[in-house]
């Protein structure tokens, strides 16, 4: 095997970008869990909806950019409706209830999409300006993947500014720490949680439309990412945004380097890594203990 420095650099770089994609996949799940302690099993289906709505908007407008801007918004609105009609009655009950509900919802959404759009997946290509590879010196790398990472960075900065630097963000954070106190201050937490669920859903949708040109668009596309996303969220620490970022990148590197040295172990190594982290830090890298209690 060629284990030259340049081969290793190429592999580490690929892993870094893959890690960035893992972060993008997981951030919506992390947000909803961290702030609402709702384990959203419909995350993968919302991701899939993002790609399908994107395809629909692309057909309507002919522009990838219009689709990219509005598909996550549509998924966000859908998320708000789901929260209002299905999740809300379950607040205050055991965390298993919303988990089971969203699990069922995801099965329903997959079948619904198959009924509407058919069992054959949809053709979804990157816009021409972002197709093809760019020569980085040590390897040829897809332009589109670099674009996805750029979007991810912008979204993460935006999300951080929103949570840390705005009044609404302040209320959201307060609500996640001590909901009773926030209510006592006369704030309608129901509206806040609806907003958080909507944002989490929109982020899942954004990941879906961005993933479409890399991975294809089909009704079951969310099934694998739900596992990847959970691993990222658990390793990073349930509910920690910074944790999700660090964990996503670490797992990207674990996958990439294992694929390089021992490809047969690439899948299992992710879980070995997760188990090892949990042995040392049971709440994950940056998690607060006791969120689910």
């Amino acid at each position, binding site marked *: 095997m*060629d284990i030259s420095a340049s*081969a290793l650099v*190429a*592999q580490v770089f*690929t*892993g870094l*970008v*893959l890690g960035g*994609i893992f972060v993008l996949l997981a951030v919506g799940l992390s947000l909803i869990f961290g702030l609402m302690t709702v384990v959203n099993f419909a995350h993968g289906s919302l991701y899939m909806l993002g790609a399908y709505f994107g395809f629909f908007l692309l057909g309507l407008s002919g522009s990838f950019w219009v689709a990219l801007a509005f598909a996550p918004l549509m998924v966000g609105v859908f998320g708000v409706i789901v929260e209002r009609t299905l999740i809300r009655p379950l607040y205050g009950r055991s965390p298993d209830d919303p988990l089971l509900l969203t699990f069922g919802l995801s099965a329903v959404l*997959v*079948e619904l999409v*198959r009924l509407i759009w058919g*069992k*054959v*997946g*949809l*053709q979804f*290509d*990157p816009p021409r300006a972002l*197709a*093809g*590879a760019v020569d980085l010196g040590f*390897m*040829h*790398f*897809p*332009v*589109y*993947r670099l674009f996805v990472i750029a979007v991810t960075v912008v979204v993460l900065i935006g999300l951080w500014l929103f949570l840390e630097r705005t009044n609404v963000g302040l209320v959201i954070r307060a609500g996640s720490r001590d909901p009773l106190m926030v209510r006592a201050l006369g704030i309608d937490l129901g509206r806040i949680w609806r907003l958080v669920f909507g944002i989490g859903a929109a982020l899942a949708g954004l990941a879906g439309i961005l993933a479409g*040109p*890399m*991975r*294809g*668009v*089909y*009704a*079951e*596309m969310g*099934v*694998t990412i739900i596992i990847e996303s959970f691993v990222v969220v658990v390793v990073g620490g349930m509910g920690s945004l910074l944790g999700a970022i660090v964990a996503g990148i670490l797992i990207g590197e674990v*996958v*990439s380097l294992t*694929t*390089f040295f021992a*490809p*047969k172990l*690439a*899948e299992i190594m992710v879980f070995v890594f997760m188990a090892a982290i949990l042995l040392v830090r049971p709440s994950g890298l940056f998690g607060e203990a006791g969120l689910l209690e």
Partner: protein
Amino acid sequence: MNRRAFLATTAAGAAAMALPAVVRGQSRDPIKIGFPLPLTGPFGAIANDMQRGATLAMEQLNAKGGVLGRKVEVLFRDDQLKPAVGAQRTKELIENEKVQFVVGGLAAHVQMAINEQTKAAKVLYISVSQSDEISAKPDTSPLTFHEALNPTITGRAVASWAVQNLGKKFWIVYADYAWGKQNNAVFSEVVKKMGGTVLGSTPYPLGNPEFSAHMPRIQAAKPEVLVPVTPGADNVAFLKQAISFGLKNNVRIVQPLHWIFYAKEGGGDLFSDVYGGTNYYWELEDTIPEAKRFNEAFRKRFNTEIDSYGAYGYSGIMEVARGIELAKSTSSDAVANALRANPVYNHYKGKQWWRTCDNKSFQDMWIIKGRPGGKTRGEWGYFEVVAKIPANEELDRTCAEKGHV
């Protein structure tokens, strides 16, 4: 017997005799064929096609008056592409629905689970998807028939064609489960035997559409031929990523099989110049009269084109029916013996035959190649036929190699 009962019996008998044979036959119990297949999950589009093929066979048989004057009923069940579910559905079909035969299964590992159930219940099973083990000992049985191609036949045919026509230096990326591993083994063996080299082969977990971590090594190795053994929706993801990493510019791509559904999902540009094998592609109707008749019947019924696995489903049902008529019985043993005694058949694309030692079907196959984007023929004409690989028992392992003495 009193007078009233006598009159009633004779009247009923006379009425029955007056009816045409068709109607009389169908008033008896139907012949039931169980058909487990993964209607949900990543092979849903192929399973849908297979269900349509089998449905067409059932309807054509019934339109001709059924089999032995009895109606044929095919009971489809979703196996979710999981061996445990496939086994459960098959058991239910046999025990609760009392099916007399089983056709179906759309993945190597699920058909093994189905086969365990049919073996235990002594029910004839015609497998209609790829597997090497299904027709080899210890898994096979005298009641297990294999209609589809298998990885050995496909791999030997496609790999030797690729070494002769596309290049000598290969890289293989394969799904890490039965069918993928078998293909990897056969491709590697054939390439080496024919003087080529396999620069590397990397497994990935089936159903995981992320291949970027494979790409740096492939780029650095500079193979002439890239072989993705990436079934179902993985195929589109792999080609998207290989092309986005710039691999298509200087590498020829060949894969064991093509399906029109994934070509449509990926689009003409993605599949252009990608080679692959197939047991059936609808444009064969240009040269094969049986294919033309078959396509026309399918179009009339479903208003679309049939693909390779739909054809397997059709042929599987038709073979059960042919066996019953030859045996004049619905006993699985009698039907199996009748098929072995009359091994040659032709349902949709020309002559096929059962090899009697292992109940394996031998049939022609073809190499097809993606047309350039924008040059698609009609809605489904993504490929052109490049070469025919005639049916040949030497492409499979010998009976002795498969454990049959």
